[in-house]
């Protein structure tokens, strides 16, 4: 255990280098650069708000904030897991030639997506101000859902990246899984419209619980309950354990399949 920790400390520089590399290269050569992390969710929200307030009528109070919170959380998860999934495959040249702890690759991708997500929270601040949504001290608990999100996406990313090396089909399959997951997350509909059976299924979706907690502190001005925290913590621990074990078990085989 202490050997692992020592390795991690030695290579933590690599982790931060890779994260900053990803963020730097993401918007390189675009004129607006980092601003896109804010503009993108803002524009999406505007389109969806227009669609849902004219074509599909809905009675969600404060729809812009409701939708934006959902979209930010889901996109962060989707970006983190998607990029982490292919991180080992796309860095095959490096893995074949240099020794370094391989888990750094998916972890750095999840980290980069998370930094990008934190940046895009500026969009949320803008929309909160424009819609004159009042906030309370509960917002100070914002780091909680963010932490759970980071842990779960890291775990899922580790799991997927290890599997994807062995079975490339995962890369294609995961797109479908993400779409299903998106509809199982109340991003643009209220959870109350679902029949009981569907709600049962949704309760197994970790993103739903994180989103609930996120909306709790941002829009509903309430402190998330202990139960909600325990549920999110449980999901985080399961995701991390399964991810780390799968990765550890498979990592020595990577080189044979790259």
């Amino acid at each position, binding site marked *: 255990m202490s050997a692992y920790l020592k390795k991690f400390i030695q290579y933590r*520089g690599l982790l931060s*280098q890779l994260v900053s*590399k990803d963020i730097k290269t993401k918007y390189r050569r675009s004129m607006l650069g980092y601003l896109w992390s804010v503009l993108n969710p803002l524009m999406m929200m505007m389109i969806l708000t227009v669609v849902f307030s004219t074509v599909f009528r809905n009675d969600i109070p404060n729809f812009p904030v409701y939708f934006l919170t959902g979209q930010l959380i889901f996109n962060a998860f989707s970006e983190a897991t998607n990029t982490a999934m292919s991180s080992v495959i796309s860095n095959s040249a490096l893995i074949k*030639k*240099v*020794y*370094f702890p391989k888990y750094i690759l998916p972890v750095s991708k999840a980290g980069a997506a998370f930094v990008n997500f934190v940046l895009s929270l500026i969009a949320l601040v803008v929309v909160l101000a424009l819609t004159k949504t009042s906030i309370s001290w509960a917002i100070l608990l914002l780091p909680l859902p963010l932490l759970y999100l980071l842990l779960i996406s890291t775990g899922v990313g580790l799991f997927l990246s290890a599997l994807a090396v062995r*079975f490339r089909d*995962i890369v294609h399959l995961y797109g479908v899984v993400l779409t299903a997951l998106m509809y199982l997350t109340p991003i643009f509909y209220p959870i109350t419209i679902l029949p009981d059976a569907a709600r049962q299924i949704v309760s197994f979706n970790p993103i739903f619980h994180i989103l609930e907690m996120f909306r709790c502190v941002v829009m509903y001005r309430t402190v998330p309950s202990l139960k909600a925290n325990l549920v999110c913590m449980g999901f985080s621990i399961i995701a991390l354990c399964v991810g780390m074990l799968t990765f550890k078990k498979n990592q020595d085989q990577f080189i044979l*399949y790259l």
Partner: protein
Amino acid sequence: MESTALSVDGVTMQFNLAKENVDNLKEYVIRKIKRQLNYEKFCALRDISFTLEKGDSLAIIGKNGSGKSTLLKVISGIIRPTAGSVTVNGSIAPLIELGAGFDQDLTARENVFLNGAVLGYDKKFMREKYDEIIDFAELWDFVDVPVKNFSTGMAARLGFSIATIITPEILIVDEILAVGDHDFQVKCENKMSEMLSRGATLLFVSHSEEKVKQLCRRALWLDHGRARMLGSADEVCDAYLQA
């Protein structure tokens, strides 16, 4: 203080030589059901053992595909051997593929730090050594140019400078000095000799018999993954050339 720098003990490396790479689920399931999942085994290394004292130098020679690079990869920890073990006492600088960790879109300056991190050096250390690295690579005019615009030789120069920034206890060199112009090759060889004179242990792969004799005291001849001969560099080289 231990006197062995490296001991390789009965290392065997076996690859599944999948004729058609089974890397998708459907294929895997079908073959599992049909019980066709027996891969052809390919032994890249068979029961290789040797020890290297501190300050010693060993050349590994052999034909293409005889397992030289695989052995170096096993020693530097990139692949884990199927059987046997490798014990390393000290830091390793693997000059196996220079600039392997370069990101083509980043500039030379950014790549120095990225590559340093890949090799496990911290940022502060790299900042101190930065000038020295660019000096040695003679790339001051190109520090802010993306590496994708570099020539192969320039990238190799940068890679060599980064990899040799510490004086490692064990230096692993895999036929890399073939790139780069004559002046730079001489410079690299001088740097390697300097490290050796400071007590570094060398593991060297080359097809040039002349360089092997010049740089190494001992040699290991690999033939189809087996150790055919282990002895003084002169003897092994001569036997290899006659075979």
